[in-house]
């Protein structure tokens, strides 16, 4: 079968799963059948992605781009909106990452949300998300791209607000949705600038082919269009200044955080820039904006992650920071390096979230790092997974993150010029990453055992709080639909969770081996056909000298080990003194980081408050006085008029007849007078 046939199958399966479960989940036998059906659909989808990969590799390297059109939405001059998929190494790379990680996370979720009242709904949403994400990465036309882009936003909204009776969760969902809509608008307007003021074709290949003849390098329309595309990418990938939704999105169930808000959806921005590389290479000004914003985000997010206490939010900020690396890489034309980091990051970040879910299970729903400590012996398997993910995230030598992050920074350094600044800040970010990752690990797993950990280790009882509560506000809840179910699970005892985590653990240790400097270059070789017409890409991957690469590898190792050692010193050896003393000594600095650089407060003052004020004015004054005045005025005019006319309608039949005859007589008289 051709790659496109496999791709259509890969796309159809998650949709089929979503539709099947939404209609028949209630009539299925067994408690978890709906979950297994959803999971099976994604596993089959992964198999289809592998089939597409195999069938693509059977073709020659210069003949690996395929398109297939299912139907036309509209086809006329300058508008060729078609349901086209574009299957090339880049698309299949993303398909494999998305469907593979999704399959593992689905497997994990079958246990994790088992007792939730809304189990089938969860899998419907999750399958719908995978369908949308696959549509996004496969599309070969701006229209399906925009559709997929909006669908993943909707799926993200539905899953963040999955526990819809939790006020914090619904608020977070709305916030994410609004932020993402800003990105959607950016994407649509960007398409307008590039297509309708330029290439006159919505088809990717045609647009890419025409872009350098239609636009001069750095032409105004093209740069504007590319910056608007970047707005879309920033909103989806939680880059500054559109990042504030991502930490709040942690209100959703943990598998959702792992799937959507770590491994797949948030990397859509990276994919978009890589996919649109022929545009960005003609609009280098826009690409530079992307690189600078990515670099800013990675530093800002890392500094915030240092002081957060909610374990999932720490991981969320680390996601932002790692995506900063990817955005920086693909904006600096190091596409394969960025995508390699995307690939390894999907593994270790999904693993970290899964392990965090396991600790939260052991804490009975509590997420604060302040309350958890000493879980090392109570949760040995979770500890190993968290440690493996943490080491990969901190770029510890020979783990996956080490090679991918180093690849990104190496290429940036090789480009020279002002990219040196990004190179240095990238290493600063790497140091902070090691520090905050191991702060989390040392606080949760080391030190004196907390009550929950001791209970679990000594009696084997999983801690269950007396009342279910909201981990954010500690309000009491029940366990009915719209709130989390009564079940809490740890990976040590649940086979589906364990299988998923094992696979990811192995992945995040060995994945890096596919692209080791001086040894092999698999990712680059595989992706090269997708970037075949890109002179900048070819130049960038050749540039770094061997010395720079070696220095980078050593520097990475030193920085990562140094960061871990410092974290050990602060949060294990001196856990009772140094953190407090630092907090006292550098109060403003700590507050600044703890309040997330005051972004939320700023947006509150600049956008939310004026917005609500205008809204309140419109509702209380404009609506009451002007709109209601118009409506009520119309009503009273009609009513007064009808009162007058009603007097004639007295129901006296013979009067009607008389009036009729009188009218007739008058008409006759008038004609008579006219005729003489």
């Amino acid at each position, binding site marked *: 079968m051709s790659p496109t046939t496999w791709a259509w199958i890969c796309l159809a399966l998650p949709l089929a799963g979503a539709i099947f479960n939404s209609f028949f989940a209630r009539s299925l036998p067994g408690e978890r059948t709906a979950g297994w059906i959803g999971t099976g659909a994604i596993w089959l989808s992964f198999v289809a992605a592998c089939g597409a990969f195999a069938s693509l590799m059977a073709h020659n390297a210069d003949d690996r781009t395929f398109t297939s059109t299912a139907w036309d939405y509209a086809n006329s001059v300058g508008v060729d909106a078609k349901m086209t998929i574009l299957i090339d190494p880049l698309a299949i790379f993303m398909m494999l990452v998305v469907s593979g990680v999704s399959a593992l996370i689905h497997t994990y979720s079958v246990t994790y949300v088992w007792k939730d009242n809304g189990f089938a709904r969860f899998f419907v949403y999750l399958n719908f998300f995978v369908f949308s994400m696959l549509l996004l990465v496969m599309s070969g036309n701006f229209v399906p791209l925009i559709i997929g882009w909006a669908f993943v936003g909707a799926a993200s909204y539905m899953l963040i607000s999955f526990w819809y009776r939790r006020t914090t969760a619904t608020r977070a969902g709305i916030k994410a949705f609004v932020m993402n809509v800003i990105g959607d608008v950016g994407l649509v307007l960007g398409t307008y600038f590039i297509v309708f003021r330029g290439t006159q074709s919505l088809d990717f290949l045609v647009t890419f082919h025409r872009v350098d003849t239609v636009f001069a390098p750095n032409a105004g329309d093209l740069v504007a269009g590319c910056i608007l595309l970047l707005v879309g990418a920033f909103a989806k990938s939680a880059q500054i200044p559109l990042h504030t939704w991502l930490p709040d999105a942690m209100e959703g169930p943990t598998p959702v955080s792992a799937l959507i808000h770590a491994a797949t959806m948030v990397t859509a921005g990276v994919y978009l820039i890589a996919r649109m590389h022929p545009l960005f290479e003609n609009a280098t000004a826009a690409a530079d904006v992307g690189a600078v914003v990515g670099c800013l985000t990675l530093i800002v997010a890392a500094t915030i992650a240092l002081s957060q206490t909610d374990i999932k939010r720490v991981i969320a900020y680390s996601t932002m920071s790692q995506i900063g690396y990817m955005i920086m890489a693909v904006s600096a034309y190091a596409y394969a390096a960025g995508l390699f980091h995307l690939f390894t990051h999907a593994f270790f970040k999904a693993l970290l979230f899964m392990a965090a879910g396991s600790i939260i299970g052991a804490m009975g729903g509590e997420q604060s790092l302040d309350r958890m400590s000493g879980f090392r012996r109570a949760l040995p398997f979770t500890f190993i997974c968290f440690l493996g993910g943490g080491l990969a995230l901190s770029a510890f030598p020979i783990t996956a993150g080490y090679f991918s992050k180093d690849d990104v920074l190496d290429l940036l350094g090789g480009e020279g010029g002002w990219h040196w600044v990004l190179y240095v800040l990238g290493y600063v970010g790497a140091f902070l990453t090691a520090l905050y990752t191991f702060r989390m690990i040392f606080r949760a797993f080391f030190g004196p055992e907390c009550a929950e950990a001791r209970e679990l280790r000594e009696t084997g009882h999983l801690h269950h709080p007396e009342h279910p509560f909201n981990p954010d506000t500690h309000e009491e809840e029940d366990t009915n639909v719209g709130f989390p179910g009564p079940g809490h699970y740890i990976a040590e005892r649940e086979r589906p969770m364990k299988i998923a985590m094992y696979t990811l653990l192995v992945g995040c240790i060995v994945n890096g081996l596919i692209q080791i400097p001086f040894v092999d270059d698999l990712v680059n070789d595989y992706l090269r056909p997708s970037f075949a017409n890109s002179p900048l890409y070819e130049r960038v991957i050749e540039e770094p000298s061997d010395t720079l690469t070696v220095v980078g590898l050593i520097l990475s190792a030193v920085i990562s080990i140094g960061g871990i050692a410092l974290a050990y010193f602060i949060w294990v050896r001196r856990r009772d003194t140094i953190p407090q003393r630092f907090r006292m000594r550098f109060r403003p600095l700590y507050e600044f980081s703890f309040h997330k650089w005051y972004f939320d407060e700023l947006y509150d003052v600049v956008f939310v408050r004026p917005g609500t004020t205008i809204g309140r004015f419109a509702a209380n004054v404009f609506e009451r006085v002007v709109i209601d005045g118009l409506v009520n005025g119309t009503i009273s005019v009609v009513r007064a008029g009808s009162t007058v*006319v*009603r007097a004639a*309608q*007295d*129901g*006296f*039949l*013979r009067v009607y*007849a008389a009036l009729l*005859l009188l009218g007739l007589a008058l008409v006759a008289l008038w004609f008579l007078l006219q005729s003489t």
Partner: protein
Amino acid sequence: MTVAWYLVVSALIFCVGAGGVLVRRSPLVILLCLELMLNAGNLALIGFSRMTGTADGQVFAIIVMVVAACEVVVGLGIIVALYRRRLPIDVDRLRELSG
């Protein structure tokens, strides 16, 4: 004999019908008077038809008769319904149509 006399007769019958509609209170008689008015119209149409020597007026008259027949069916139906519901057979007392 000119057409004028036909028209005079027609006008007289029309006035008789109209007067009946205005002064009588029984719906049955009102219906009869309406028939008179319609037939006055018919008479005028046929008179004109004779005058012009074409058959148009006669065709109209036949159509008017059909309409009149339909109208009588509806009208008598209403009267029977009024009777069955023991409502007064008096148009002045049936004033529910007042606005």
